[in-house]
């Protein structure tokens, strides 16, 4: 085992998103960013593998049109050895197909690897396609939705969480694994680790450095609109009197709605 690549998305922190009440448009410009939660679990898992097997290099791969350095410093502080960024500034609207293509090309340029780890989905777009698309482009065995992982003599063995069963699957490396949030609890870097991380290298590539033509990234899907959902609810506050009186009013309302009984 020589190298693990972890794909990190610099995601919009959805808990801090604001909505324009009049237009229901999201205000994404300038919204705070962070490492997509699931990807953080992927990075944590890579670090735990390294703790068991010595001499493993962990590199992170990120595609971003902005400067993601603050986000990547956190990844380096957690324990990644080196971070690669592919800057896609000027090429807008890249979908999962283009993202996977860029990350797959970048993985090739990084060099030999044993394992690619990705979050099973992303915090903001929640598509859950990029990992599998990368596996397909690189013709790698893929194991998705993994909540337990072990590595032994060139083989990765992983437990997948399915709808009503769990399934243990193994594959020869190199392989690609996508992880769930259950797999671990990502560490919070100490001040010491943060300081050490400032010496680690962040390498930035342009699309041209990977020999990628813009046309290859033409989106295959198109978002017509993305609006805050309308919630048309009655918003009746049941007030007044004792708890007894309030719950009786509520119970009557629920019976009238036909949602209890029978």
């Amino acid at each position: 085992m020589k190298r693990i690549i972890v794909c990190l998305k610099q995601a919009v922190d959805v808990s801090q998103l604001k909505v324009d009440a009049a237009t229901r448009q999201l205000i994404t410009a300038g919204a705070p960013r962070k490492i997509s939660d699931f990807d953080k679990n992927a990075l944590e898992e890579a670090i735990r593998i390294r703790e068991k097997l010595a001499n493993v290099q962990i590199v992170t791969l990120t595609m971003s049109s902005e400067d993601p350095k603050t986000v990547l410093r956190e990844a380096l502080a957690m324990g990644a050895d080196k971070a690669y960024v592919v800057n896609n500034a000027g090429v807008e609207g890249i979908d999962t197909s283009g993202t996977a293509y860029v990350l797959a090309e970048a993985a090739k340029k990084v060099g030999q690897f044993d394992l690619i780890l990705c979050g099973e989905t992303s915090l903001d777009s929640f598509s859950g396609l990029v990992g599998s698309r990368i596996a397909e482009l690189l013709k790698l065995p893929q194991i998705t939705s993994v909540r337990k992982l072990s590595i032994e003599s060139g083989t990765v063995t992983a437990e997948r969480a399915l709808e009503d069963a769990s399934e243990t699957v193994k594959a020869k490396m190199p392989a690609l694994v996508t992880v769930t949030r259950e797999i671990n609890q990502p560490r919070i870097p100490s001040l010491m680790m943060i300081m050490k991380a400032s010496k680690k290298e962040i390498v930035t590539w342009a699309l041209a450095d990977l020999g990628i033509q813009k046309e290859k990234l033409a989106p295959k899907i198109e978002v017509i609109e993305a609006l805050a959902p309308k919630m048309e609810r009655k918003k009746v506050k049941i007030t007044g009197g004792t708890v007894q009186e309030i719950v009786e009013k509520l119970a009557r309302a629920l019976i009238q709605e036909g949602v209890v009984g029978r």
Partner: protein
Amino acid sequence: MSMMSENKGIWVYSDSHDLTLEMLGKGRKLADQLKTQLTAIMIGYDVQGKAAELAKYGADKVYMVDNPVLTRFQSDMYLSVLYDLAVNQKPDIILVGSTKNGKPLAARLATRLETGCVPDCNRLSVDEKGKLVGERITYGGNAIARVTFNTKPQIATVPARAFEKPEPQDRQGQLVKLDVKTDPPKTELVETKPLQASSARIEEAEAIISCGRGLTKKEDKALLDELAGVVRGQVGCTRPLAEDRKWFTEWVGLSGHKVKPKLYIACGLSGVIQHVAGIRDSKVIVAINKDPEAPIFEIADYGVVGDLYEVLPALKDALKKMLQ
């Protein structure tokens, strides 16, 4: 694959039989609208009985690939079957069930066919040009995106219970048996274990009593259980109660179970957007919270400002009496 002018119909595939039936219901409507054929794909071993059933649920045609090597779902092998069929038959639309196996399969199929994929569509329609439009939750529940395609086939994945399973009709379809070469598997199954059956599936509950961090002790779940007993419902929770406190094994929300019961009673939970995204389609939402400013009240039909420890037992008694 570039835009093609010919229209070779709508395909439906899922590794879950129920989800196949649900997608056939929606697929039938889309096919009628587009005046095209609806085809179900059945892959597995000894699946003739199941395949024959699909016409009753709306399929004009069933492509059946029946082979002992396909007894269990295996992504590389199933992918090669679907890819082979799609490359030869050139469907216009492929709907894939968005299960843990189905979504990665759709992603790889789209990649191999060099086309787009819109995942987790809760709604599907066609626009005036006949293009597929999928609606999905995005930005952690902050937005609903309407997404369409620039390439064909148009691949969309569909979550369980997004569409209703149609009533079986007395109708005939064409069953086509196909023999397809499969790629060798790149992964090997070591073992499979059924998950400890959490008795009933929460998605099927008609009423759900759900709690958040307002529940202060694990044992107090009993309060929810008692009310659930009266309204014949199930008990749910928010993510922190399952992931952080480990009082429950599963939770309701965008990253957990998405539910649409007739009645959702949210107790002692503030209503963060990710939780709300999982309950949006409930018929009636009741919020019980000590904090009158809790955002859950903004999306509730009925709100009670109060302590769940007082309100729940009283509500249980009141309902019990009235429903007798």
